[in-house]
């Protein structure tokens, strides 16, 4: 099966360096402090933020900064074939740790001592780029909750197939087992916060793919920013602040 046709189109009709269509919705859940729905192509992720609150386990509260907790779950129907998962699997712990790591660098934790910010992520459909989508959804939910952050954090994945770097792999492309990179970036500060790469590749290939992923991050950041601004403008207009 060829992943890039001779005309330069991938299996879903995109160009090699084209992101999937991004969609962001805010305030989708009513009981939490902030929530967001992030969709990249078919990958759909919900994120809800509770906090800042008193830490559940008082002993874990930190005296000078907030405690960030992250829970990850994916629906049984999220990956094509429905599979029942019992409790926490290793993959969910790993993904939750990655999202938490990205958020700890983003949220200004010194402003919220003793508090706990809990982020719950639910994947509704996983079609590649799940880690990136989770981080983006968590970022949008945190911004919706009004928790002070250093900068936006935008994540994007990229891969290398048929000697070509491809941006934002979907599930079919990622399943081949080639190089896959996930990068999370602070766009205004231009700093890479999270970087995960899998599968063997030469250093030059890795550099090319990572650079492409960085550009994807910047594009995703722009889209997320536009969505956030529009949401807040409409909120402020309704309350008469503008």
């Amino acid at each position, binding site marked *: 099966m060829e992943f890039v046709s001779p005309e330069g189109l991938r299996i879903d009709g995109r160009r090699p360096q084209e992101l999937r269509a991004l969609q962001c919705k805010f305030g989708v859940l009513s009981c939490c402090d902030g929530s967001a729905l992030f969709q990249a192509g078919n990958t759909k992720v919900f994120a809800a933020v509770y906090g800042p609150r008193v830490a559940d386990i008082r002993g874990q509260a930190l005296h000078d900064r907030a405690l960030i907790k992250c829970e990850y779950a994916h629906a049984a129907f999220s990956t094509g074939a429905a599979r029942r998962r019992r409790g926490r699997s290793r993959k969910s712990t790993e993904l939750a740790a990655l999202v938490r790591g990205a958020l700890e660098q983003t949220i200004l934790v010194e402003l919220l001592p003793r508090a706990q910010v809990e982020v719950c992520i639910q994947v509704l459909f996983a079609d590649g780029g799940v880690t990136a989508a989770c981080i983006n959804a968590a970022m949008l939910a945190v911004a919706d909750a009004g928790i002070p952050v250093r900068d936006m954090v935008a994540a994007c994945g990229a891969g290398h197939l048929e000697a070509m770097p491809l941006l934002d792999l979907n599930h079919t492309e990622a399943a081949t087992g080639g190089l896959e990179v996930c990068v999370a970036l602070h766009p205004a500060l231009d700093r890479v916060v999270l970087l995960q790469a899998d599968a*063997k590749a030469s250093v030059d290939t890795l550099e090319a793919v990572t650079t492409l992923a960085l550009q994807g991050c910047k594009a995703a950041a722009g889209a997320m920013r536009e969505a956030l601004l529009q949401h807040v403008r409409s909120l402020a207009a309704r309350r008469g602040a503008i």
Partner: protein
Amino acid sequence: MQRDLDTLLSNSERNFILKALKEEQRIDGRRPFDYRKIQYQFPADEDGSATVQLGATRVMAVVTAALEAPFPDRPNEGSLRFNVELSPMASPAFEVGRPGEAALEAMRLLERALRDSRAVDLEALCVLVGQKVWHVRVDVHVLDHAGNLADAAGLAALAALMAFRRPEASVAPGGGGGGGGERGAVTLHAPDVREPLPLSLHHLPLAVTFGLFEGGEAVVLDPSLKEAAAAAGMLTVIATTHGEVCALHKPGGIGISLSQTMRLVRVACAKAAEVAEGLRAALRGHETARVARRVCRRGAQGADAGALLDDAAGAVAVVPGLGDPGRAAAAAGGAHLDALAGSSGARNGSGGALEPGGMDSSDAEEGSRTSARPGEPRKLPRAGLVAAAAVVGGARARQGPSSLPEQAPGDNFEAIAAMIAGAAQGRPHSGDALDLQAAVKPKSGKRAKVRKWQPLGT
């Protein structure tokens, strides 16, 4: 960051470390890109265990393998599983019970380095497609945590995998109505019967961890415990010795620029090559010691300077001085093994390459052993043995004085040891091999005679 006892650091210590780093000094006197001293220990009596000491961090890895049915979706591949135990004796931060996030992170790094990057050839672990494959399990125990568990665990696992020897399994060609057992019964040979085989590794992945400080400007390699507590982030690069990257792991932590990341990746590739050299040298020493121990064992048993020889193609041992029963056994065994010689020759992993040009045990570690002398006659008369020994002895002399500790009195023994190490199998140990042979292909007459043969020294 969860509150762990090993990340607590006083502000004075943290400031001291950061201030020293500004002048490119580290608190233990190393330069920013220096590793701590790496020491390897391989236990004398086990073939799949290694203990690595990286400075004060100690990690032990044990490799075991079991022959079982394969996973249904991969009928022609073995499997490789990892388990990382962070025992409470290693650090006050570790608790008994379910593996925490740190253990999971270490386990995932090992999986990505050794399994997902296809470092270990899993298809070579298949013995009988769909029925019997080798399931290899690597247990990594952290004995002492003094910083940089990722690198130490990766090294220990890799060293253990390279030192591991699995028993050779042979499949009887079923059909022909001969055997009572089912078609293609698998025979496991004891280590004394057939030389156990190493795993075949395509490349050597090594983890290299960097600690990132402050604004991502100051970077150190192989952070110690205090440096890791003072660090603002960590980056682990899993690189092979050929300048390829198997995995990158930066789970949060302070942000760094892309150019800085790439620079660190290149440094990691260079460092991985250095560490791999040290690992290979340690394995060479272990291999020599192992062979010498076997010679000592055999030599002690032999009444008549037990010279055991096999040729690379894999026939049977000659025990000179024993006379007819020995010959008969040899003949019987040889007839049987002959049937396997074809299959074993075709498969990778029979004896070491033994060329007059000298033994290169590093080839053994790389796993690409080929049969060097397929056409050699099965039995070497004693004169031939001595001649061969002389050849090998000369080769070894050319190689340089290798240190065979203790025993091996006399040059002949050394040479013979070399031949054994290079050759494929040992002599057939009566009890095991012959019973197995009987199970596969029962014979009459000669079998009875053979059973009466008293083997040397068991």
